[in-house]
């Protein structure tokens, strides 16, 4: 796993201990100081999205509120919006992911998608953090996806 100072395993998935998690969108948020964050898919989000072949992003400097469309993602000829887990201004997109979107599936924690600035700290508080809380949520999410047949047993 890339870019994770600490990690822990839940239901067979390795999770980074230094991130916050959006329980509805299966995204991670990494704080980088001075109101900046990076955003990426957690392993469950990457797996259920499928093999990603293309991503396009909203324009740099776009101001986004929590839940607004940040990108459009394509996997297996399915195209859908990706909404931001926190409000902020789009500062940068990961060019490596633009060129090779499959990196998200291969290394969800290493393949960050975007960097946001001027992030609303109240939005960060909505996200899960800490091994105990994250593990409790993630194990339930894995079980739900398995029951739905969305991921392998």
């Amino acid at each position: 796993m890339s870019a994770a100072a600490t990690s822990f395993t839940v239901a067979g998935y390795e999770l980074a201990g230094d991130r916050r998690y959006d329980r509805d969108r299966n995204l991670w948020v990494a704080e980088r100081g001075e109101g900046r964050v990076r955003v990426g898919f957690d392993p469950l989000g990457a797996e259920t999205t499928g093999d990603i072949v293309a991503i396009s992003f909203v324009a740099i400097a776009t101001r986004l509120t929590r839940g607004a469309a940040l990108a459009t993602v394509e996997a297996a000829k399915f195209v859908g919006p990706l909404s931001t887990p926190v409000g902020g201004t789009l500062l940068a997109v990961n060019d490596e992911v633009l060129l090779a979107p499959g990196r998200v599936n291969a290394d969800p924690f290493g393949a960050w998608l975007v960097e946001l600035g001027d992030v609303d700290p109240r939005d960060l508080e909505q996200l899960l953090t800490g091994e105990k809380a994250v593990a409790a949520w993630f194990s339930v999410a894995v079980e739900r996806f398995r029951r739905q047949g969305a991921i392998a047993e």
Partner: protein
Amino acid sequence: MTATLRVIDAGQVTALRSQALWHGIADAMTPSEDPVLSFCRPAEPYVCVGYHRRLDELDLAACDALGLPVLRRQIGGGPVYLDSDQLFFGLCLPAACAPSSVSRLYETLLEPAAAALRELGVNAHVAGTNDLVADGRKVSGTGAGRIGGGVVVVGNVMFSFPHERMAAVLRLPDEDMRSECLRLMRANVSALPALDEESVKNALRRAYGSAFGRTALPSTPLQHEEAAIARWERRLADPDWTAGPSLPSPVGRQVKVRAGVWVYDGSHEDLHVRTTVEDGRVTVAHVQAPDLNGATTALARAMLGVPAHREALTASLAEFGPAGARVLKALEPGLVVR
């Protein structure tokens, strides 16, 4: 009261409306609405590209010469030639009711289409996530997306298909690649001329009604759906929309014909490689490199019959050392199939 599946049969419509219809129905969908099965046939031919495909995949001069407008859809997949010999079907349901992974979505929403074709005597099944295939040939192209409040899966049933026109509208490096694409299209994409439109629509109504446990009832677009369809007609006609999102230039040129079948033309530095993959294995390979004269034939031969995966090709090219690694580098982008 029995749950219903609304069936909107728009009949023959303009090219623009044949796309706007199901975009608008999906966009307008609210969480509590019944699913909608829509049908239409475009009155005139056109070319349609998937949301994340660059317009330079098309020979726009050829499209123009053939009188083919180009439209961009907000679902996935590559360029397709569409005309009045194709029936479009679209199944739309509230996003919250859609299966939670893409693979499950296609399983759930395409299997009824395969069942409908089987009822009509076509040996159809879902292959490679989202192709409808019968006797090894693709009989329906499909794509899907989340648009507004709805998730939509769209497919076509081809009563005839002009393979030559499809090959003619693609922008390709040379005519050899066009010939190879045409050969693969003829071998792997098939129309269903024995079927008639009404039988197909009736079978799809029954299959989707049964799969969803709902009664299929004729319907027309509601007011909010009509407004959304009109909005999508304007959007799809907008040149800025047709230009598409900003996307990086592709490294090589890939044309996928059906699941497991594609052609790739790529280069790395001064090494050029072209491969055809059929049923997941390399069946044709050419390698050109000025400094490898004498070895290029052996390099190409080493790929024949090998599964089109990085690991398998790495193993088969390993004996050639750095030359094999260069071939792999040129070929690698073409192993990600779109």
